[in-house]
């Protein structure tokens, strides 16, 4: 049995993305004992991913990243990397485990806090369609993450599909790395997006960003009202089939980058009893949740992107260390951003046709290989878990549960600890999970 390490902090931040980095560096400015815990090898979250950025770069986005990395480095912050928070022992104590496994000197961690800031980010929404389990069919952001962590894509044929502004960012990134982006397929209709673009006139920086993407993407078709219906290949992807509701086209490609916008990571906030509203963590203007001393920032409060994540992080960093007046100008800034977030949600709302993506034989639960025909008769998430093994595997419903919410109206937000699978020996305390784990090898 590995030893349990105990540590106490004035302010503990869970999540090392932009929101958590802003929160921790702001909170640490006044001599408070601050720690940031993240399950990745380095800070930066989904967008920055621990890459190095130069403040001398011509790109404004790189400059921003470099500035925040510097702030975090210069502040007195304990950085706990490769540690995943999986449960709460009692009020004021979180449990985390090392990604390094039992051979490491660090096993389980007990993290005590006075104030907690949750900055857990978002994940892509995946929808099952025939062939989505083939190798080289990945999330859109996921393929980009792989390239950011070293995967060369020069000369590869890539189709980007699904929904959300992320598709454009991903396609531009792939192009910049020498890939042949065959096309970008957005499920939302032109009309839906036009209404959004009109609203964008209020935020010029974002228009600029959009134009930059466009220039980088010259020559790559951006098709709206178009979505994936199947992927083919023997074990590995060979072609994808795209539809606009009237006709279908089959396109050969090496990678299929497909994600349907983002869903917030609210498992930990929910586990701690934070009140959710429409699937997001409810916060007051100081980023306080319904639970005293617990704040929430970034994507879990609304899918608002980088700028909103940073501002919310700063607000919570100030509020959690008693500097409420200083947060006021930031609060005004945040308020302006909120209407953008709401419009984004509407613009990229999923079309009902996508509910018919899986056929009877399509695997919905990838952990346990449970098919759509096995789950569709059940009205609730609870019933599905009870009668099939769907949602009982190591992802604990993070993939199939979010899909089922949209496809079948399940309420997948009912979490139970531990929120994420834990390694074998930390699990001596949880025999039921151990059984699941050993079956999945």
């Amino acid at each position, binding site marked *: 049995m590995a030893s349990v390490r105990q540590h106490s902090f004035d302010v503990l931040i869970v999540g090392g993305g932009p929101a958590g980095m802003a929160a921790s560096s702001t909170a640490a400015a006044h001599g408070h004992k601050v720690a940031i815990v993240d*399950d*990745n*090898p380095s800070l930066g979250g*989904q967008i920055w991913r621990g890459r190095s950025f130069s403040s001398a770069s011509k790109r404004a986005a790189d400059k921003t990243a470099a500035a925040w990395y510097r702030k975090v480095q210069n502040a007195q912050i304990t950085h706990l990397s*490769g540690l*995943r928070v999986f449960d709460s022992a009692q009020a004021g104590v979180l449990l985390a485990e090392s*990604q*390094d*496994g*039992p*051979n490491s000197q660090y096993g389980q961690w007990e993290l005590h806090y006075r104030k907690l800031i949750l900055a857990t980010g978002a*994940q*892509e929404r*995946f929808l099952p369609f025939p062939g989505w*389990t083939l*190798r*080289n*069919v*990945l*999330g859109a*952001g*996921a*393929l980009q*993450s*792989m390239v950011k*962590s*070293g*995967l*060369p894509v020069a000369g590869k044929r890539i189709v980007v599909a699904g929904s959300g502004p992320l598709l454009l960012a991903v396609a531009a990134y792939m192009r910049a790395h020498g890939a042949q982006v065959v096309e970008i397929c957005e499920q939302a209709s032109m009309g839906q997006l036009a209404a959004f673009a009109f609203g964008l006139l209020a935020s010029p920086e974002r228009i600029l960003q959009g134009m930059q993407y466009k220039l980088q993407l010259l020559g790559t078709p951006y098709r709206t009202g178009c979505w994936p219906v199947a992927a083919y290949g023997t*074990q*590995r992807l060979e072609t994808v089939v795209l539809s606009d509701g009237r006709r279908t086209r089959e396109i050969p490609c090496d990678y299929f980058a497909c994600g349907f916008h983002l869903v917030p990571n609210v498992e930990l906030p929910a586990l701690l009893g934070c009140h959710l509203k429409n699937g997001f963590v409810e916060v007051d203007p100081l980023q306080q949740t319904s639970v005293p001393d617990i704040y929430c920032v970034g994507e879990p409060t609304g899918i608002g992107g980088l700028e909103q994540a940073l501002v919310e992080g700063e607000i919570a960093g100030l509020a959690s260390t008693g500097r409420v007046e200083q947060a006021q100008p930031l609060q005004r800034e945040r308020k302006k951003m909120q209407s953008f977030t709401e419009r984004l949600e509407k613009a990229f709302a999923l079309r009902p046709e996508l509910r018919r993506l899986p056929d009877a034989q399509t*695997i919905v639960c*990838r*952990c*346990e*290989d449970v098919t759509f025909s096995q789950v569709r008769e059940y009205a609730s998430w609870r019933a599905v878990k009870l009668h099939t093994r769907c949602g009982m*595997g*190591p*992802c604990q419903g*993070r*993939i199939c549960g979010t899909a089922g919410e949209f496809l079948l109206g399940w309420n997948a937000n009912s979490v139970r600890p531990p929120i*994420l*699978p834990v*390694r*074998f020996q930390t699990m001596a305390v949880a025999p039921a999970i151990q059984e699941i*784990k050993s079956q999945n*090898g």
Partner: protein
Amino acid sequence: MHEPQPETVQIHINGKSVRVATGSTVAVALTLTEQACRISVRHEERGPLCAMGICMECRVTIDGVPSRLACQTLCQPNMDVRTHG
């Protein structure tokens, strides 16, 4: 912009040595060499889906430790990776 030549690191996947750029994740090494991470209940080959530690499709055995996430583990010199564990 001038980019320095990336250094490489050698790891072993199922006994075969593979060289990748320093800073690559194990998931990158597996995808690059066109190998599956695991075999599913219905015997399908699976590779990374989310690349952020939530889908668990990328779990492999690393240096004897089972169920490690290839997408959140950086390649270290002489690391021993076993797939289909």
